[in-house]
């Protein structure tokens, strides 16, 4: 039993899953859309990063930027297709969910078509060294992944707190109708939200590429994980998503060490079911009543 390994894994996984979950959570709370095409954006930005590393060069900033930019593009694309046409139509939430599902169905097939079923691997972003912090041995890759995830997430959250556009997004989260009365354009804001969450997916994709590789269907498992974290934290709540990510990351690291990798999903869903049975709106779902689900 190597506790340091477990802890290091838990931290890394929590950071990356947290990024995904916050992306999903933000989309839901500000646009009322459960973005099931998130896995597609994830896979797409993996391919974007891979193309960049092939054609421009395997430099860390290039690969990361390429991944994030592709994610942004993917988010904008999904928004233009699944949000803009139906956001003011009846039964929008269910239709939006199904539209994003359809996009992910088509998109994954297109990826399969154009890149083939073989998984691609990205270059190691943060070198191969390892550091010993307080007796915990962390590989450079994990440290890099955690730090970049935490830094970017903090930047995003600070921006959400303080800027005018952040206020715009938060206002739209609370009451879309009132937001338009104040002068916030729902369609414009939706593009910035989806670009932001798409970028987060791209970031997570680049960071997770060492574990999941880049494959046409590689996005589904991370998306299900991100969804379950967002769900557990309470859809629409950023602190809830962070707490959820920490809990699930810890669980995953512990289960894979103690019981074996195949039981991860089982313990994870049992945990989620348990938490949701106690708190039906997730961990933080009770704290803020941002949007009536």
């Amino acid at each position, binding site marked *: 039993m190597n506790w340091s390994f477990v802890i290091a894994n838990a931290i890394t996984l929590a950071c990356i899953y947290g990024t995904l979950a916050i992306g999903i959570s933000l989309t839901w709370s500000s646009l009322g859309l459960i973005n099931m095409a998130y896995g597609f954006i994830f896979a797409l930005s993996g391919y974007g990063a891979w193309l960049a590393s092939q054609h421009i060069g395997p430099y860390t900033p290039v690969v990361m930027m390429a991944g994030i930019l592709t994610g942004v593009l993917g988010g904008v694309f999904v928004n233009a297709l699944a949000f803009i046409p139906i956001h003011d139509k009846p039964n929008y939430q269910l239709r939006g969910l199904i*539209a994003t599902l359809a*996009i992910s169905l088509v998109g994954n*097939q297109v990826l*399969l078509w154009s890149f083939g079923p073989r998984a691609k691997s990205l270059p190691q972003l943060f070198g191969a060294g390892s550091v010993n912090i307080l007796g915990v041995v962390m590989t450079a890759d994990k440290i890099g992944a955690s730090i970049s995830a935490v830094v970017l997430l903090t930047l995003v959250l600070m921006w959400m707190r303080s800027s005018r556009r952040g206020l715009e997004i938060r206002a739209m989260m609370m009451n879309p109708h009132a937001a338009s009365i104040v002068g916030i354009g729902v369609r414009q804001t939706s593009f910035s939200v989806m670009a932001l969450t798409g970028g987060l997916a791209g970031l997570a994709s680049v960071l997770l590429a060492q574990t999941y590789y880049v494959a046409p269907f590689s996005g589904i498992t991370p998306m299900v994980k991100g*969804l379950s974290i967002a769900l557990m934290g309470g*859809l629409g709540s950023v602190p809830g998503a962070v707490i959820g990510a920490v809990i699930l990351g810890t669980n995953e690291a512990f289960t894979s060490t103690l019981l074996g990798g195949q039981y991860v*999903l089982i313990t994870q869903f049992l945990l*989620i079911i348990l938490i949701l049975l106690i708190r*039906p709106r*997730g961990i933080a779902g009770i704290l803020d009543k941002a949007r009536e689900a």
Partner: protein
Amino acid sequence: MSRTWIDPLSGFEPEKAPREVATNDYLSPQTTWNETTRFKPKMYKVGRLNFFYKWPGHGGHLWSRTRYWPTRRRVLNIGGTYNQKTMRREKTILDKRPIWWTIAFAAFLLMPFAVPGDLWNTVMTAAAVFGIYAAVNLCWMLIIGTAGIYSLASYAVVGAAAYGATYIAILTGIPWWMLPLAGAAIGLVFGVIIALPAMRLDGFYYALLTLGVVELGRVYVIQSRVFGSATGGLYGAPSYLPDDLSQQDQLLYGYYASLLVMVAALFLYRFVNGKRLGRVLRMAPEKKEAFAEACGVDYRRARVSVFLLSSTAIGAIGGFYASHFGGASPNLFSFDTLLLALAMLVIGGIGRSEGAVAGTAIVVFIDRVLIDWGPLRFVLIGLIMLLVVLFLRDGLFGIKPQFRAWRDKKKSERRATRAEKGGEMLPEEATETENKDEIYYRRFDKMQRDFIKRLVTNEIIEEHRSRPLGQHSEALDRLLIYFRRQGQVDKYAILVTEEFKAYRIVALSGHRGTAPRVVEDKVYLNPNEAYHALFLRRVQDLLET
């Protein structure tokens, strides 16, 4: 504009100078009529029954009253009315769905004999799959549409039941007809497990949770050695077909058997959705549960019972699936299966049995018959799904109501853009009015008002102010006659509070026993003043219509 009018009554008193009053130029009462008839507006078609075939006859015949067991429904819902123009009795088929279902069943039955030979095997395999999937989708539609529980775990239940039944069959060697029973039991157990969180979670939380359950099942089945992680599925369940059949006959019988399963599922759908449980649940749609609860509807219980009933049925279909395919494969748990199944529901339209069947037919056809297309067929399915979701509110079978709602909306908007008719009936209103005299009366009244309005000038008002009673000029007389002719409801009158000292204006109620109401606080000191104030009020009301 103005000319003088000499009071003809002045002739009785020749000693005095004749009374002269400034008044309007003569305006023929024919003017508005001429103007109205000169103006030829574009005529729009109105009414919406052009395309309904009207059957002749009285409709009291027994054949329309035949009811079929065990419901008290008629075979065809036929409504009879009297045609207002011809005063003949007419009949309309109000609900044509039974006819379409009959045609569809005939087509299903005859389908094997119409398929070209080189495609026969592919199509018949696909058709059997269609029957089973349609049955599952119908039960799932009960959960999503009727009960309003967004469960995505239906195919996971099918998978669990199929795996369980196969496993039991391999262990104990039970005959094929036990498989659906075993599957039903497993489905019930699974239903109970999945229904537990549904009591507390709502909407999307539950959908995502069940998505997790599906993923859980998939990972478990893929990794479990008992369930054939090595062979890619668990096989060895007994088939319901005799062994000595040729391959063609096997396919044919398999198709009819799965069609039978679909018909059974249709009956289940009809009995749950169309009877008490369905009605109860339709009273408690999502977000209106509190209202239903306040009406005494125990919607939770109804939802859970529908859920358990459907889960049991889905389990039984899972058992049949195992028997049909000889086992189960982990494919049932995959995300793709879920997506395709969801596409089937969505394309047809959620909440309709015909939607489930038609959607399944479309998706299974693309998925299983057009195999040569490769991954392109998923793209096609995805695109259809996307287009349906983006443009249709309720799937393919919702096109008609959606189109009608759109047309009605457009119609009313167009009506709003046309000129205001000033009290005249608009064409749409006119078609729905029983008393057609009313239309012509309103048209006449409008024209008359248009004419009368032109007579109101400062001269006329001045003339009335100087002498409210007595002989008036022609224009003022017309005005006053029009006012006098109005109905009693809300007609202005003068209330004498004290003779020659205090008068007030009231409005008559028009109903015997109901006192007039006071319309203003002002007290007039002499009757002429009051007459004129009343006149001004009427003029103002006239100008405002």
